[in-house]
């Protein structure tokens, strides 16, 4: 018996057009290319990739903030773009986002309360302003801002990055979501504070039971998040999911050559270990231009193991020994 996933991407693609004016030639970027992914209730998925790999675009597609070029997004089995107005409104409430830069994700000219209240009132989670105030204070207490009343009347510019990050979390939770996309949610924080913020996110998950899609470029952060909260790590390269695995299995025993390179390149804060590691194996140092169309496997231009088939046939993502991998030769590596 398989349960209906909370949220599902089915052959999802998003193409952006860049440039193009009256006479200029338009170029296209396949930011997300035929991606399928299921996230269950209360589950954690860490989505890892380098900048420009389409991980944020995928997050926004899943939230219904971008309209897909093809494919569909299903929330509890229903295509979000075929929902009626009421259902879509409900979906909007249930799926929230946490951005990277806490300062730019809160309106600078409104107080914290003014930023928190409207959504609760609009979704009838609270019936009055007074109730909204009470609930807002409660939420701020939950994210560890004490005394909460002090913070509610403040403007964002008078708070630290760490505090703002908590407020963003509180705001996302204020509408009782069951799916939160955290887009590089801790990378603007000081290194010392990052794991604290991750712990808080996971603690609140125990209470609210929502699922996380945790987007990051940092494998170490993804590993911490998944080991602590359970879930899967998904690796993305140039718009494609290349590997998916439970826990940190992807990191311990990478199956896809790209994941291998990524792990070999990630520095380790231990001088003895880090000095003994080899350079990642790569044919070419430079990432292909995003506008360039690459036939076959997108990694074949840099892959040290690539063969003729790699440049011709797009590898399907398939299960290899409990792992999902998109590589023609996955068996050789696992």
């Amino acid at each position: 018996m398989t349960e209906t996933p909370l949220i599902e991407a089915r052959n999802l693609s998003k193409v952006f057009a860049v440039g193009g004016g009256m006479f200029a030639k338009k170029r296209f970027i396949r930011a997300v290319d035929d991606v399928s992914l299921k996230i269950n209730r209360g589950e954690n998925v860490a989505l890892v990739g380098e900048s420009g790999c389409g991980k944020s675009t995928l997050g926004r597609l899943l939230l219904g903030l971008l309209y897909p070029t093809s494919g569909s997004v299903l929330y509890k089995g229903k295509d979000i773009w075929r929902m009626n107005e009421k259902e879509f409104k409900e979906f909007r409430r249930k799926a929230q986002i946490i951005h990277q830069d806490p300062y730019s994700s809160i309106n600078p000219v409104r107080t914290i309360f003014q930023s928190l209240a409207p959504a609760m009132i609009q979704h009838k989670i609270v019936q009055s302003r007074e109730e909204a105030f009470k609930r807002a204070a409660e939420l701020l207490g939950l994210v560890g801002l004490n005394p909460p009343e002090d913070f509610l009347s403040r403007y964002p510019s008078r708070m630290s990055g760490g505090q703002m990050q908590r407020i963003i979390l509180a705001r996302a939770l204020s509408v009782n979501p069951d799916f939160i996309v955290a887009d590089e949610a801790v990378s603007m924080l000081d290194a010392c504070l990052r794991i604290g913020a991750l712990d808080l996110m996971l603690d609140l998950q125990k209470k609210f039971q929502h699922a996380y899609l945790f987007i990051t470029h940092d494998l170490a952060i993804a590993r911490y998040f998944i080991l602590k909260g359970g879930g899967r790590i998904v690796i993305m390269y140039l718009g494609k999911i290349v590997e998916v695995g439970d826990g940190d299995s992807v990191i311990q025993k990478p199956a896809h050559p790209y994941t291998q390179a990524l792990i070999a390149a990630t520095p380790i804060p231990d001088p003895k270990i880090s000095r003994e590691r080899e350079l990642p194996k790569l044919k070419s140092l430079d990432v292909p231009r995003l506008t360039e169309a690459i036939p076959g496997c997108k990694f074949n231009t840099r892959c040290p193991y690539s063969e003729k088939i790699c440049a011709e046939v797009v590898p399907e993502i398939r299960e290899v020994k409990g792992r999902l991998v998109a590589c023609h030769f996955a068996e050789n590596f696992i």
Partner: protein
Amino acid sequence: MINVSKYKRLLSSTITNIKFFFKVLRRNRVSFAGFLIVLAFIIMAAIGPEIVQYERGVDIRKRFLPPSWEHPLGTDYAGRDTFAQIVHGSREVLIVAFLTAAFTTTVAFVIGIASGFIGGKVDVVMMTFADIFLTIPSFPLLLIIVTSLRKILSPIEMAAILSIVGWPALARAIRSQVLSIKEREFIESAVCLGLSKTHILFGEILPNLLPYIFMNLILSVIGAIYSQVGLYFIGALPFNATNWGVMIQAALNQGALVNPRVWWYLLSPLACIILIQTGFILFMHALEEIFNPRLRTEA
């Protein structure tokens, strides 16, 4: 009950804002001077014409008198009091200027917001139109419009015509502001929270725009005084009106450039224009400071 508390809140926040306003003004003396000048002219335009009598009769014996108790700024070529003309002229100048600013800002606001918020074809059409208007030199355009009219213009009509040239630049500026605010992540958060378009426009975007719009309102006032007096000065509008521009032109026609006796009559309106424009500019500098969010938090 809730309504009462709402008004109380509104009142108290208004009082805080006004206190803050004067605090900034006090700190910056030059801006305070600007504020006082503007205030003085507004008072003059509001109650001046009721107090100061303006005798329209011609009295050749009193031509070009120097200032005296009876005529604080002397008299004109027909022996009429200059000060009275200044006072009576100020009302029309200011009414038209404020009306123009209101019209310009409203039109620019609606178009700019619509263009930036709705985007797509609406945006392309409106901005192409605004761009073409922008390249048309504004004062000559006003002249050509005014000369093809036959009637004497009421202040409202005058303001309507003046705002034809002012809106495109402002609409473009507001649009680009809206676009840049729209790009900010808090808008995406608001969309995600399921907040309505109305809330996003009026609750999130507008509060960020208000300072900008307010500053431009003042710039429009300055622009309107410039063009309005200019139209009278160039003779595009009827000569019989009481307006500073008419005074300047009349003085020049009377040979003010060579005849020092005419100077009081010429310099009075000139000084008024310089004063009021300077006042508005300095006042705007203060507003810039008031609206600067960084300084605001430290107040």
